[in-house]
Every structure is written in C-alpha cells, then in structure tokens.
C-alpha cells in the first residue's frame, strides 16, 4: 500500500528518462574497453598469481600487450595457449619471465581462438555457477533473517584482526559483514595479492583475504544458524577484476556504482562507465547484490538541497544495472540519513526520503547509509542519531541497513562500537517493529509534501541531464557538487578504443547466461 501516494506513472516516466540517459552512453561503451576489463577477462579465463616483483600476472600480460590490448587481451593469450599448449597462467608466467613475446606469435586460426575462448569462458561461468549453487544451498540450510539486514564493517587493516571482529559481530546479530578497503586502494591500477595485515582505514581487497573471511563467516554461520553475507568493494580502477575475484570467492554483495569513481575518486568518466557495465554482468551471473554509492553525494553536498540528486542517480544506476542483467533483487540502491540533525523536523525529512526510495524501488533491497557527515566526537549524540536512523530504517522497511557507529568521527570501528551499533539497531527495531503497518500520513504533512517535491525535482533534473547528456552534466557538477570533465581523470590512459577485431569471449557467454542475447550488442 502506498503511504506517500506517489504517482506510478510519474515513476515510470522518470525510469524512462533514465533509460534514455544511459542509452546515450552506450556508443561509448561499445567502442571502448579498459585495461581492467581486459585483466578481468583474463582472470575469468583462469589467470591468477603474481610475478617475482609481486606484479599480478593479468597486469603483466596487459602491460606487455600495449596497443594490442585493443583486440582484446585474451586474443593473443588464447593464440599463445593454442600455440604452446600451455595453460593461461603458464603462458603469462613465460611472458613475465621474458621467455615469450605475445607480439611475435605465429598466426593461429581465428575460429580456434574463439572456440578456446568460449570454452574457457564457459568453464568460468560454471565455476561462478557452482558458487551460486553453494550460496543457495547454504541459505536454505541457514536462513537469513528478515530485513532490514544488519550490515557492519570491519576495517582494522589486518585480515586476521578483521576475522576476529567479524565473528564477534555475527555472534551479536550482524547479518552482513563488509571488509572496508585500505585508503587509496581504489587508485591502484592492480589488485594486490595474498593475505595482508597492513592497511590504513581498511584492509586490502585481495582474493586471499576474500577467501579467509569467507571461510570464517561460513564457520560462524554454522554456529549461529544464519547465513552471513560478505561484502567488499568492486570500485575504483580495478572494479571488474574485483568483481571476478568476488564471484570466485562467493562474496554476496559488492559496492559498485556507475558514477562514484568519477565523482569521488576522480577516475575518468568513460573508464568508469565501461568498467561498471562489464562488472555488473559478472555480478549478475554470480548473483551478487550490488550496493550503489549515492550516500556519498551527501557527504559533500547538502542533504536537504541535494536529495533529488540521490534519487536521480539511483534511477541511473538502476537503468545501467538492469541493462547489464542485474535483476531488481540484486540492486542495492544507495541512499543515506545525512540531514543536519539540528534542523527542525530533520527526522521527518529523513523519513520522507527513506519512504520515497522504498516506494519508488519496491523490488530492490535498498542500501541505507547511517549518518556520517554530522557525526562528531560527541558519541552520545551520535548514538542517538544512529537510533533515529534505525527508526527510519524499520519504519520505511529498508533492505540493507548499514549500522552507524558512535565513533564515526574518530576511527574505524572498535569492537565495542560495533556491539553498541548492533544493540542500538536491535533495541529500536524491536521496539518499533511494526510501526510501518500502524501509521499513515496526513495528506498535507511535511512527509508527503517533501516526497512529492523530491520526486518533482528529480524529474526536472533527469530531464535536464537527458537534454545535456550525462557526461556534460557530470562535467558541470550536477552531482555531489563535483565537476569531472570526460577527458580528464585518473585511469584515462587505460581507456582504449576497441580495434575492429576486438574479441571478448566472456561477453557472449555472460549475455547468454543472463538472457541478454538480444540486447547486449546495443550496449557493449
């Protein structure tokens, strides 16, 4: 039942506008690839490991290929495999040792290359599919709790400390554990390797770390009787590679946004758009829920003034996501509780926003971020702000509730902070469990008026973006008060025009798994 009385035809109209906006980007996606997409393809085809300098083999190969990457990094590798009858990793190791030059390969018939490529890509899909089955069977046995799922972060920098902290949190009721990445990993143009113990404000995202945490959470899930979801970040310069690692290690959710890297990491816009699309196809195949990053907008822009930019971005993220094969159930669209707590009726405005998002995206498990910007050293007040956030969460029936930490302004969470956060959510969500079913809003209430205002402004913004074009809108600072021109930004050198003979064996395999055969060529 609609609490806010949002007009469904308006919602449909906005969705249509968003689709037109993202469709405008399609030609760019189609004509470009990036170094990390190519490395992700190599990983999907089975490449892993590092060279003697700890450089990941996918990077070794792509660096080695230089201009030839435009053909698709796998093309030369598959040719070399056929030629040398070695595995993809063996080939890469030879390249690393300087024993093999992929620029000097004898000709191999194109159909053999394609055939091997599709074969390996299909194997890769099987590997991912096995993880999907594994997840489903565990979830059958260890049912997840009802929503809002309680999501907490660990971020000690040391994967082994993270494990202890994560397990403790699960024992106290956490449903989801996110391992925050070390500061600056998003700007590394490679993915570090092996277990790590030295991060700043977070722990390196490595496949080994994923595996260690996955095992720990599976273990504690058996004891508590509930499957525990694991989250990491498929974001930054290596977004698609990290998705592949996550798919292989049965991560359940990944932070993944179509614009976050552009706005907040100054990553080149085209790079980000290309990366996110491919990433999401892998996410979709692996049934990984993505979490988008709209909450971040409100850490720089004002949450009252910029509320509609959050919703507009959610529509855009949704449109890109659906196009890449993500079903609505896998779209954890982001929003946040970030209005100045000293503003009169701030809670009512927050509630309005939360209910609005819920009503506009009824089938998606929204990701709801706690207060961060207005958190201060006053931990007592912060604890209350988190309580009101939890109340808004249960009231508006959020899906994924990122629990706020009372020490948000000081440090990544201490063990006790996480415990207190869980206690906060438990108390509030139990005490007001059925509030959603109790209450209606008066037609002239602030809650309803505000929701309509935000909807209307979102419509206007989306229209303008369609007129202007998304790249120009971003360049003009329409999102998060940040301006990012399309021809600048980090990772620009890694954006490449595809050659006429470009081949990516994972594309058709993914497309068929996702039922996108008819649509996919319009996009990539």
């Amino acid at each position: 039942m609609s609490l806010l009385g949002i007009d469904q035809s308006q919602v449909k109209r906005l969705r249509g506008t968003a689709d037109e906006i993202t469709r405008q980007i399609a030609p760019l996606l189609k004509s470009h690839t990036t170094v990390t997409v190519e490395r992700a393809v190599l990983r999907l085809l089975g490449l892993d490991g590092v060279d003697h300098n700890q450089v990941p083999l996918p990077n070794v190969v792509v660096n080695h290929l230089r201009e030839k990457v435009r053909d698709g990094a796998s093309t030369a590798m598959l040719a070399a495999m056929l030629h040398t009858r070695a595995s993809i990793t063996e080939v890469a190791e030879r390249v690393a040792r300087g024993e093999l030059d992929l620029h000097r390969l004898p000709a191999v018939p194109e159909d053999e290359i394609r055939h091997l490529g599709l074969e390996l890509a299909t194997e890769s899909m099987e590997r991912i599919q096995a993880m999907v089955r594994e997840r489903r069977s565990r979830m059958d046995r260890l049912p997840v709790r009802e929503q809002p799922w309680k999501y907490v972060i660990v971020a000690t920098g040391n994967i082994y400390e993270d494990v202890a902290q994560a397990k403790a949190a699960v024992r106290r009721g956490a449903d989801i554990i996110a391992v925050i990445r070390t500061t600056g990993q998003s700007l590394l143009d490679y993915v570090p390797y092996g277990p790590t113990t030295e991060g700043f404000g977070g722990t390196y995202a490595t496949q080994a770390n994923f595996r260690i945490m996955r095992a720990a959470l599976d273990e504690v899930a058996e004891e508590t009787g509930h499957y525990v979801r694991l989250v990491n970040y498929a974001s930054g310069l290596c977004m698609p590679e990290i998705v592949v690692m996550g798919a292989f290690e049965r991560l359940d959710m990944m932070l993944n946004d179509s614009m976050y890297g552009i706005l907040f990491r100054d990553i080149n816009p085209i790079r980000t758009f290309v990366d996110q699309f491919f990433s999401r196809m892998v996410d979709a195949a692996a049934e990984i829920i993505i979490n988008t990053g709209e909450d971040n907008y409100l850490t720089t822009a004002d949450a009252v003034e910029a509320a509609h930019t959050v919703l507009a971005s959610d529509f855009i993220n949704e449109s890109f996501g659906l196009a890449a094969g993500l079903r609505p159930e896998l779209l954890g669209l982001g929003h946040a509780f970030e209005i100045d707590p000293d503003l009169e009726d701030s809670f009512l405005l927050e509630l309005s926003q939360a209910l609005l998002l819920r009503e506009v995206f009824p089938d998606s498990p929204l990701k709801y971020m706690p207060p961060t910007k207005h958190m201060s050293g006053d931990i007592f007040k912060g604890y209350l702000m988190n309580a009101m956030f939890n109340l808004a969460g249960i009231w508006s029936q959020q899906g994924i509730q990122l629990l706020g930490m009372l020490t948000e302004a000081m440090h990544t969470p201490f063990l006790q902070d996480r415990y207190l956060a869980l206690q906060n959510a438990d108390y509030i969500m139990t005490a007001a469990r059925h509030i959603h079913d109790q209450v209606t809003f008066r037609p002239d209430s602030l809650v309803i008026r505000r929701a309509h205002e935000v909807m209307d402004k979102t419509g206007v913004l989306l229209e303008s973006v369609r007129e202007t074009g998304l790249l120009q809108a971003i360049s003009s600072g329409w999102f998060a008060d940040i301006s990012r021109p399309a021809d600048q930004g980090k990772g620009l050198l890694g954006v490449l025009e595809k050659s006429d003979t470009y081949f990516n064996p994972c594309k058709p395999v993914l497309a068929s798994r996702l039922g996108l055969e008819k649509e996919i060529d319009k996009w990539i």
Partner: protein
Amino acid sequence: MDLNLREIRPYGDSLSDGAMQLSFTLPLPTGPLAKEAALRLARKMGFAEADVVHMADLGEGFSFFVVYGKTRLFIDATDITVTAVKTDVWDRATCDEKIRELFGRKLKIVGACIGEDAHTVGIDAIMNMKGYAGHYGLERFAMIDAFNLGAQVEPETLLARAREKDVDAILVSQVVTQRDAHLQNLTRFVELTEAAGLRDRFVLVAGGPRLDHKLALELGFDAGFGRGTFAEHVASFVIHHLVQKRSMGSEG
C-alpha cells in the same frame, strides 16, 4: 592473536592497543586550558595517547569531555583469584529435597530492607511468591518459611523479629548507596548482632545492586549477592553454609 594473560590491556581494534573511552566533567570553563587539563589528566592516568574528541560547555564554569586514549597500563590476569559465592546452585525442587534430607525440618528465613531504604523490589524478588524474571521466590519453596518485612525496617526491629521467629538466616537488602548509606546500615546491623552475642546464630546474607560477595564478607556478612540474583542462589548458599557450620561445630 596470541593472548598473553600476564599482560592484558584493553582492546580497540588490535590486540593490546589499550583503547579506552572516557567521559567526565572538569570544574573549568570551556576553552583551550580546560582541554589541556583534560589531556594532562588522561596522561596522568597512564594514557600514552589521548585525544579530546568532544568538549562541551555545561555552564557555571564546568566543561564536559569525551576522551579516547590508549593506555600503557595492563593487568596480570593470571594473578586474579575471584571472590564469589562458590557453592553449587540447586533449583527449587532440589533445594527442598536437600533441606528435607539434611535438616529434616523447614528452614526459616527473614528478610528486610533496612534503614531509610524503601527499595523493596529486590528483596521481594528474592522472597515473595512471585519471584523475579520467571524464578519463584523463597515463599514458594516447600521447605522454607520466608518472612519478608519489607521497607524501611530498623536494624533493631529486624534482629528482634529474627530472634522471635528463631530463624536460620537473615537477608538484608540495600539499594540506596549515596554517601555510602548502604555501608553504614550494613555495618550497623552486623555490630548490633555481634553486640547481642548473636552473630553465630544466624546466616547473614546481604544483597543489592551495588553489592558483591567480596564487599559483603568485608562488612562481616556470610555472603553478598548483586544484580541478577534469584531465590535459588540464596537458598542454595544458606543450605551449604548451614551444613558447613554444623560440620565445623561438630569438629570443634
């Protein structure tokens, strides 16, 4: 993580980091001097690092602080011997059975909240039929006669009633602790009992949210019980203690 029990420090997000949160008020007006005073105090307390993360003006020349710090101090956990009531806790049925078996008669227990203290919920929880948090009180025990005198009973009255009824044990509850009211009342009760030459005649048990076994022993009681106590804890202790007294008596 290799835990060294000889060197236990608080844990924030890595072993032995010593992380702690403090909050307190200083009688100094809000400003850089007060902030520095707060930091110095933290350092004096043994903090290697300390950070005033919040300072607020409370008015009238007072300032409030929230401080996070990392302490250098540690304690040796191998060195700790815990003072707690060590007897087994039997459930109600077992208690009744034991009493039947060991004494062949009902035990008599009197209890009260003494002094000006009128917080009876605690003593009621232990003594009254209804009990507390699903645990029935002593009145419900078949083999116990329980007399709850309630609130604001004078120590003299409690002792007189105990003699009158010829009880086995006396339960004293104290909840108000401001200006150490509980210590004064409990001490007075023990002194009174001793002065009357009756200390050995009764098992003396004290209870209340700010009491524990250690403190009760120091005050001259036989046991002390704090938060989360149920009737069966008390009954079990009384049985054990009476048996022990008897065996010591027969030896002596």
